């Protein structure tokens, strides 16, 4: 391990420098057999982290992700995943996921254990996990077949009378506590104070639910930038174990204010993933054939990225005030 493999103390007040390379962070915090949560609801999807997991050849992972989409399909194709916990398995609105469907429909090339939840069921699992609760209640699943195929969807009787004065039952979900949660964000400081804007999904809860957390960012910023707007810090440093700087690491999803969604790639993936040979060729070329995400980015080329560029739309500053 090189120096960047583990956090080390600095003179920074109250903080630890947690900046690591993606390679080092995945090596340190993602192990064969782990439960790995990758969150980001259509926005800020930690694709580059998924690719590094593929490069390092992790096996037998349980992947937890609300919207299992392209990056999950790629990890499945690379043989990293034996179990998937999710509430939506599809290529966004662009089509379906070839590898995922082959695995589930035909056990091709091997079976995939799949636990289906609803979106809010997943959110409540993160809420329970992050708050160290034995369960979280939600007003879903009554009459659904999902509890029949997922024995972790259970019911409790409320100790308060229902609206009609009779005892009331409600479904609950169990906590999820991933070994590691990986999220992508716009920016963080070296200590891991992480700021996100635009769609923020369930990332903060997914981080708090995990034993370890890796935050991948578009930009490392000075402490003063973070501290000029503490309400923007959705994940405080104390919940973060590694900060990885990886510009454009959410491609083909988007990073609000940094680059737009690559809709053409989403559409292309639906075709690629129909063909097991094409997807292996794609992985060979773009993931296994690149040393890291910087090489992937360079390989796409500046002209390509220009097509995803966005103009500027700055927020109006707010005044935190200072004592006179």
């Amino acid at each position, binding site marked *: 391990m090189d120096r960047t493999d583990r956090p080390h103390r600095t003179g920074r007040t109250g903080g630890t420098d947690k900046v690591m390379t993606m390679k080092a962070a995945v090596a340190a915090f993602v192990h064969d057999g782990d439960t790995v949560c990758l969150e980001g609801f259509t926005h800020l999807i930690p694709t580059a982290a998924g690719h590094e997991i593929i490069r390092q050849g992790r096996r037998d992972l349980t992947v937890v992700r609300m*919207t299992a989409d392209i990056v999950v399909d790629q990890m499945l194709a690379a043989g990293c995943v034996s179990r998937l916990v999710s*509430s939506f398995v599809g290529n966004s*609105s662009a089509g379906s996921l070839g590898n995922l469907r082959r695995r589930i429909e035909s056990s091709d090339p091997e079976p995939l254990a799949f636990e289906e939840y609803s979106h809010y069921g997943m959110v409540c699992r993160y*809420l329970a996990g992050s708050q160290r609760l034995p369960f979280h209640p939600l*007003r879903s699943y009554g*009459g659904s*077949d999902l509890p029949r195929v997922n024995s972790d969807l259970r019911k409790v009787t409320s100790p308060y009378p229902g609206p009609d004065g009779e005892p009331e039952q409600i479904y609950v979900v169990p906590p999820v506590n991933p070994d590691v949660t990986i999220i992508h964000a716009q920016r963080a400081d070296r200590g891991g104070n992480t700021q996100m804007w*635009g769609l*923020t999904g369930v990332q903060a809860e997914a981080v708090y639910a995990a034993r370890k957390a890796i935050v991948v960012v578009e930009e490392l910023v000075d402490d003063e930038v973070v501290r000029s707007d503490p309400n923007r810090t959705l994940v405080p440093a104390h919940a973060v174990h590694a900060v990885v700087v990886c510009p454009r690491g959410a491609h083909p999803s988007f990073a609000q204010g940094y680059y737009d969604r690559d809709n053409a790639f989403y559409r292309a993936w639906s075709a690629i993933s129909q063909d097991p040979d094409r997807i292996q060729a794609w992985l060979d070329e773009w993931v296994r054939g690149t040393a890291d995400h910087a090489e992937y980015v360079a390989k796409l080329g500046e002209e390509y990225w220009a097509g995803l560029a*966005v103009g500027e739309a700055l927020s109006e500053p707010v005044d935190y005030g200072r004592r006179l």
Partner: protein
Amino acid sequence: MTMGAQGTPVTSSELLSVVASRELVARRTVFAGIGLPTLATELAQLTVAPEIEVVYESGVCGAHPSHLPETIADSVLITGAEAVISMPTLFGCVLQGGHIDVGFLGAAQIDRWGNLNTSVIGEWDSPAVRLPGSGGGVEVMANAREVFVVMRRHTPHSFTDPLDFCTAPGPDRALAEGIRPLGAGVTRVITELGVLAREGVGHELRLVAVQPGVTVGQVRAATGWDLQVADAVTTVEPRPPRSCACCARTSTPAASIFAEP
């Protein structure tokens, strides 16, 4: 395929969206999930129901997009929006909290009570087709005051009873388990053949309108159960009114918006 006001071809998706958007008149808050529902609610807001508030499944409230959005998470929905909220707030406070009048859902299968299957065709353990799964569908069905369903294909395989799997149950199934959902379940189903309606708990879907050139018999034949028919079945207004005007407000050509994935 029919023709739009300015001679452009109207795909089935556009037709469904236009019909669906009309049903939103007089509704207040709409929850828009992935796919067709987004188009329908966008269209509604731009045409027949400008006052409705659309809450996107991505967490966007009060969007003011510069371009017609391609997905519920399109960056143009976020920039300039009135609020962007987290998933716990969206699903917990807004949807489960009871702030949504109409939820929009799609499905692979629907039964006579408006129960939906979005999980598997065939058996759970070895499905013929693995579908995308619940998404927020279970929550929309349980918590929106009413649910509109847009079905791309009206066939006996998709309009079937029993379902291969019930992902998102309507209130009748929930009540049978002793759980009382907030809303009425599915109240409208819009297909390329017509519009079905349902009054609420204890009621079946009924055919209330047919698309131009479609007969009641055709709809009944395309439905996998003995479909009830309203006393007066109307015909859906054929021309998609102002839909092209709405697209003209943005720089996105209608064709790209309404393309099938």
